[in-house]
């Protein structure tokens, strides 16, 4: 089982089931889904994601290690999709499994926040009108 993955295919339940094998007392799953609304009134058709894969996977692993130490033995898995991800589709999945739910919630939140802040992954908003723009920041 690979806990850290960057994939081009859709992130679908079988992929998560495989990882949910790390379930313990409680597993918290965060799914990031592409919004149709850009926040400034433009309609988003899709996001285009690009990653520096080797560095991004290493960052996923560091983040998971930090979460394990901070929250007491929580196991974290991260899958990020790259390429075109259309509005309504999953761009990222973070799973955190722990003996108790509080640690799982805390670790999941920590991992997605740190991923957004640190992982060398970029996204370009592709609008319904055909224009596009790179966006940084969480």
């Amino acid at each position, binding site marked *: 089982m690979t806990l850290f993955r960057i994939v081009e295919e859709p992130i679908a339940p079988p992929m998560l089931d495989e990882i949910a094998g790390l379930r313990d007392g409680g597993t918290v799953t965060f799914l*990031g889904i592409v919004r149709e609304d850009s926040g400034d009134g433009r309609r988003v058709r899709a996001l285009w*994601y*690009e*990653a*520096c894969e*080797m*560095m*991004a996977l*290493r960052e996923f692993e560091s983040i998971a290690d930090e979460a394990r130490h901070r929250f007491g033995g929580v196991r974290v898995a991260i899958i*990020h999709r790259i390429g075109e991800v259309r509005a309504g589709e999953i*761009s*990222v999945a973070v799973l955190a499994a722990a003996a108790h739910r509080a640690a799982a919630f805390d670790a999941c939140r920590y991992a*997605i926040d740190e*991923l*957004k*802040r*640190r*992982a*060398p*992954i*970029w*996204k*370009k908003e592709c609008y319904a009108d055909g224009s596009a723009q*790179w*966006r*940084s*920041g*969480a």
Partner: protein
Amino acid sequence: MRIRILAFAALRELCHAPEHAIELPAGARVTDAWGALAREFPALAAHRASTRIARNGQVASFEEALADGDELALLPPVGGG
């Protein structure tokens, strides 16, 4: 020495390709590699302050010395998730 430069996202578009090979004199630093690429693609220059550089997979400063065969990655501000 020969250096490979990988550019990502907006920087990749400014350099018109994901990868460039450049020749630099012995003793060159990261900043010289950036300068050589920015001479070829002047639009890069405005992005220096916001770009992080990785040398062979490790974040490096602009002052770090280069060695033949190094690979530099130009990383604009991230935005995954």
